[in-house]
């Protein structure tokens, strides 16, 4: 029996899931789900071929955006969107700093912690657009409803991340300040906030960005901003105007990402 008859051994990378039964069960399950899911997607081919021409018009609209036809609406919508973004971010920060401090386990008593955590949970689980629909029904059409929506959404986002940062801080400075006999407000102002300030600034800038993007969405349900203009343009199949608006949104998001990158780089 010579070694030449032994089958050549070939190395294989280890599989992602070690248990073979589980591996094959998952594969079969995934294949079954895919078949069922793809089977339940109804595709109307006639409508698709109709839409093809429109799709091409949209793509060509992107290459030749039309800024002039709806310029006044675009300016009005952009002013609404930008002012809504700024005011709602400021309002959101003002509300979420106290809530974020309250939701940090290490600086507040337990009951306060639970109250603040539940506020965050409520704000995070409701989508912007659903909140916007309800608020438009309550305070009427226009950017004010958008402002309320975005402020509400900002609270859940900022407070949660701020609370997590506060829970991660170095306890030594807090301890040192407590040792001087400082009251609780001084403890927060001199021991906690300086440690999280750069992160808070970064998060606020990031949220400013998100709020601008969201301000384009809430307009679709009547809460003011560039979304309303965009909705009108698409409803009338004016794809070149729609492309112009989308290009403006992308440009503003890119510019704000660049600027916030610069600011964060300087603060760090």
């Amino acid at each position, binding site marked *: 029996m010579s070694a030449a008859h032994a089958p050549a051994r070939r190395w294989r*990378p280890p599989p*992602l899931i070690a248990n073979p039964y589980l591996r094959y069960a998952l594969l079969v399950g995934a294949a079954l*789900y895919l078949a069922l*899911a*793809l089977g*339940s*997607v*109804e*595709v*109307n081919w006639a*409508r*698709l071929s*109709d*839409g093809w021409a*429109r*799709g091409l018009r*949209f793509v060509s609209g992107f290459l030749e955006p039309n800024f002039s036809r709806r310029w006044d609406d675009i300016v009005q919508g952009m*002013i*609404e969107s*930008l*002012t*809504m973004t*700024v*005011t709602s971010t*400021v309002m959101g920060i003002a509300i979420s700093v106290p809530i974020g401090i309250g939701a940090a386990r290490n600086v507040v008593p337990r009951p306060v912690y639970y109250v603040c955590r539940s506020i965050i949970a409520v704000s995070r*689980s*409701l*989508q912007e*657009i*659903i909140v916007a*629909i*309800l608020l438009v*029904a*309550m*305070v*009427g059409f*226009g*950017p*004010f409803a958008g*402002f309320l929506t975005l402020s509400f959404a900002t609270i859940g986002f900022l407070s949660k991340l701020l609370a997590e940062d506060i829970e991660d801080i170095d306890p030594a400075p807090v301890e040192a300040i407590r040792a001087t006999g400082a009251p609780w407000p001084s403890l927060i102002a001199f021991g906690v906030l300086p440690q999280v300030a750069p992160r808070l600034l970064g998060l606020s800038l990031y949220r400013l960005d998100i709020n601008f*993007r*969201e301000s*384009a*969405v809430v307009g*679709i*349900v009547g809460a003011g901003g560039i*979304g309303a203009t*965009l*909705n009108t343009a*698409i*409803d009338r*199949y004016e*794809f070149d105007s*729609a492309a112009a608006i*989308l290009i403006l*949104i*992308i440009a503003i*998001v*890119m510019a704000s*990402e660049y600027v916030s990158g610069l600011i964060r780089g300087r603060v760090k």
Partner: protein
Amino acid sequence: MPVTALPEGLRSWQRRTPRGQIAVWFGWLLAVAFTVFCWRVMTQGTIWAFVWDAPTQAADIGARMVPPRWSYFPALLKPLWDTLNIATLGTLAAIVLSVPVAFLAARNTTPSVAFVRPLALFVIVASRSINSIIWALLLVAILGPGVLAGIVAIALRSIGFIGKLLYEAIEEIDEGQVEAIRATGASGAQTLAYGIVPQIMPAFAGISVFRWDINIRESTVLGLVGAGGIGLNLESSLNTLAWPQVTLILMVILATVVVSEWVSAKVRHAII
């Protein structure tokens, strides 16, 4: 850190110099002034009577919303299945499309830093800047209303998200392992498969599951613009002012979101 001597021979510590103090105050003043200006511009057209009336309106709607119309639940099962499909198939399509984009955008794997990389980065930014509901609005106009528009909208929005996080993960890999594989005489494709892919696999799986979770959330409202799923029922219930149905739909959406968040947390915990 400036220290000023007080007349009694004591010394007082302050955090900033007087000049720094003024600069900081001036900065705050500008920020406040700018915010107030924005507020004034924004509220120009606001009809305050409606705003002050809001608590009454809220109480009125709240009263109409209870009790939820439980008998409507069976009609929601098919839309719920559609919603799940929009999120899952959309995420799968996005994964397939975003992997090449991520490899083209990562500084260490792109074929050309000067030409291909900016293009890939632009694809990522464009996809990320536009919310999935706006993509859906466009696609409903192009493809017609239905689940397909929703799937494509979710996919288009997710390319940017997955692409961005994945290319950052690729840029952070340990070059030593790639070097080692290359030193064995491996081809480009083999280096990719044995040097780079195993290193980014956990991040990739985590990102995909995370995006799936977000997509479930987003696909529940895509129907508002006609792109299929449970949002269609929400839209029609809102339009007919059927508030008890709205309550039930919102509860179902909330439950779906909570379950998907739980699943995604479990899976990510198992992977990482």
